């Protein structure tokens, strides 16, 4: 432990420089790809899939801000997704917002509603921990879904229709895609800011040992609730965007248990608690899922392919892709260090010395 530790510490300065450079380069490439995708690939199928993928990348990143950093596994973010959706749909209907760009203006409102919903939700759910928390979030999720079914203003089972967007069919997806992309970038920046902030460190400390964190003056309740709201906001906006794109919001799709699970799956697959993990997870899962569903639809075949791929990944990289790969790298580094170390350590043998 000690020797390698010392070595890495020594080896850091040049390493970080190199890494910084590469990191910057990769981020730049990522942004470029994100930026020009629909311009290069004009095929509507691709852009449509890209839209949904970007939406999920954003949603999972947002989810990760809470669940990834605090270690609380939330399976209720569909509540924010749906509430954001309904907020935008109702606003558009009741304030007679005409289709087109105007509706995008409503998204922040959707986000705010979601964040507002997160307050009572969090106040109740965050009293519990671990498995109990998981189930409480599920329960609250169902309460919202059933409410959407039974309450009048949601339009019940017929749902609510959103305005038509007068975009040209061939490039119809692009405005939606870019709005989603903007939300995604902002969310990632937010996630990064949280990660390096004092607030973020407090979240991580809660993940590791909540009681001790309290004992060190961390206002755990407030921090958790704040993180919950923060992660709800983007999800609410994306919900509004998503249902504007779909055109109609039904209770069972607004509050969809599969959405909850998907977020968790994508997060874990990529590796929660990291910034890139959720992005990776969503990128792979959502795009592949849509692609498979289209291509290998025939009686359950795509389910089998999907499942097998999934298990394969887990087998190779238990603990998520990003941490998994990182682990491999670390082990490899240590091993190489040890080889070099062994030569050096050969000498001290004699130290186990006799008393004169």
């Amino acid at each position: 432990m000690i020797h390698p530790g010392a070595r890495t510490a020594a080896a850091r300065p040049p390493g970080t420089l190199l890494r910084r450079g590469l990191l910057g380069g990769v981020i730049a490439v990522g942004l470029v790809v994100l930026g020009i995708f629909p311009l290069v690939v004009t095929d509507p199928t691709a852009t449509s899939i890209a839209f949904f993928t970007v939406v999920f990348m954003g949603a999972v990143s947002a989810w990760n801000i809470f669940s990834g950093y605090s270690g609380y596994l939330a399976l209720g973010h569909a509540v924010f997704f749906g509430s954001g959706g309904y907020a935008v749909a109702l606003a558009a209907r009741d304030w007679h917002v005409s289709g087109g760009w105007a509706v995008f203006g409503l998204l922040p409102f959707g986000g705010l509603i979601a964040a507002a919903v997160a307050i009572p939700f969090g106040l109740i759910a965050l009293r519990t921990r671990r498995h109990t928390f998981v189930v409480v979030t599920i329960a609250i999720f169902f309460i919202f879904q059933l409410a959407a079914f039974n309450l009048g203003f949601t339009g019940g089972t017929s749902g609510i229709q959103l305005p038509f967007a007068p975009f040209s069919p061939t490039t119809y997806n692009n405005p939606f895609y870019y709005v989603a992309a903007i939300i995604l970038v902002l969310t990632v920046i937010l996630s990064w800011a949280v990660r390096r902030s004092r607030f973020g460190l407090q979240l991580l400390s809660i993940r590791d040992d909540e009681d001790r964190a309290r004992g060190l003056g961390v206002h755990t309740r407030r921090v958790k609730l704040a993180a919950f709201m923060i992660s709800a906001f983007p999800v609410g906006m994306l919900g509004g965007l998503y249902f504007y794109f779909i055109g109609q919001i039904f209770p069972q799709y607004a509050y969809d248990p599969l959405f909850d699970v998907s977020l968790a799956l994508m997060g874990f697959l990529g590796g929660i608690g990291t910034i890139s993990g959720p992005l990776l997870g969503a990128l792979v899962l959502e795009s592949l899922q849509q692609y498979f569903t289209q291509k290998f639809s025939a009686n359950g075949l795509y389910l089998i392919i999907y499942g097998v791929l999934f298990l394969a990944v887990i087998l190779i990289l238990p603990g998520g892709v990003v941490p998994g790969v990182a682990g491999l790298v670390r082990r490899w580094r240590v091993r190489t260090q040890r080889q070099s170390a062994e030569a050096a350590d050969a000498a001290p043998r004699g130290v186990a010395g006799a008393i004169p």
Partner: protein
Amino acid sequence: MSALLSVQGVCKAFGGVQALQACELEVHEGQINGLIGPNGSGKTTLFNVITGYERIQQGSVAFNGTEITNAPPDRVFALGIGRTFQLTRIFGRLTVLENMLIATQRRESWLRSLVRRAGSSAERRRAMELLEFVGIARLAGEPAGTLSFGQRKLLELASLLVADPSVLLLDEPAGGVNPTLIGHLADRIAELNRAGKTFLIVEHNMEFVMGLCHRVTVLNQGSMLVSGSPEEVRTNPAVLDAYLGGAGDGGGARDGGGARAGGATREPAPPAREPAPPAREPGPPAREPAAAPAPAAAPALLTLRGVYAGYGGGDILKDVTIDVPEGGITCIVGPNGAGKSTMLAAISGLLRVRRGEIAFAGRRISGRSPREILDLGIALVPQVHSLFPDMTVRENVEMGAFTIDDRALVRKRLAAVEELYPIVRERAGERAGSLSGGQQRLVEFARCLMLEPNLIILDEPSMGLDPHTREIVFEMVTLMNRQGRTILLVEQNARAGLRLSTHGVVLENGMVRLTGSGRDVLEHPEIGALYLGGAVTADAAVP
């Protein structure tokens, strides 16, 4: 001088057990207060009550004139009361440095904290200084989870100091920390105290407490027994009776309660040593570790040859070569993070040996599963609690014979063990989790005896035990040895440990620094200064 922190008439019960009984405590500003008492006398519970981890129905806690009864931990900390935990608690997945950046007394809104970067350069510098002070600065970049027990304790203390609270509640700061470090610790506490900090310290190391504290409070069965200057307390018969145990120990406390405890148990010892008399002789003082002490008389039962092992691919043990002579007690000492616990893990098969070989009674055991090694007759009692908290004491002990299907034999052994450890019978039905630290130790011993192992490996058996219990534990160790079992012992209370032992091994940075008979090591000039600590502590501490 007004009381800075005062506890009045606090009662706290868990189920039927009355942990605190109308407990009174006064901590005066600028003082170092010792809080001592037998295991299970409610010291830790009192800490929990003060710092808001346990709620109370009766009694009150006041700090600096403000009522803080049942105030939440974060508020208590914000007011300036910081505490450490007996079983250290650190943030395992954060780096050591990050651990240092969490503590805060700033009442800042989460929005503010969201835009503030974690750890300004100033904070980081301060953090590094403190890490330097406790001597783990070189690990700043490592995940805290990889630290050894002692290192965790140090990190915990350091991470507390960052926010510099005005009162520090330390729960066994010296437990599991190597003697030399205890010396430095005492110096620093004294220094901080001169700088105006108030301390309340729970500790079983009498040398430490008596040398350092201005005032000592003794708890017994949940209420205050006496409170006064170290001298008063030390000479108070009630205390001797309830706590310090073994007569005359009080007087010599300055010389190390542990040492006395060791001494106390040495009297019955000699006959015990008959199996391996040569070990008692000074013997050929210096020798290669390869050659076991007095090979003729006591052949090596366990041998390590050029062993490399460690976690996550890195080596902690480097080329360790040791012999554990049959029928003796071998004690391993060394600074924190020297790899003592790692070595025991490697022996018992919990940790893979990467290079070299471990042999037991001539059979190679490195590379075997814990189960196989157990079946060969090696039992390990680990450092931290290893009981199954949710099972009864009886169940726990019976689990010791898990690998035996013959129920009759199990019952026979159980009876035998109950003979040796009455507690097993007395508390048979209770949940093991509800026992005090010392009682749990004894039950762990009892459990490891169920398989009648030839080699018993004990990791810090005396850690966290009051002197009285510690005596009992050490007696048990010699007793087990007397019954023909070879003992391999890691003991932070090095003096006591070595006095007890026939052989000593000094481990440093995962390498064997020295081997010899217990006495050789004990009396070796440089070694003594290096690892056993001296009376240094006390002198330095007196303001």
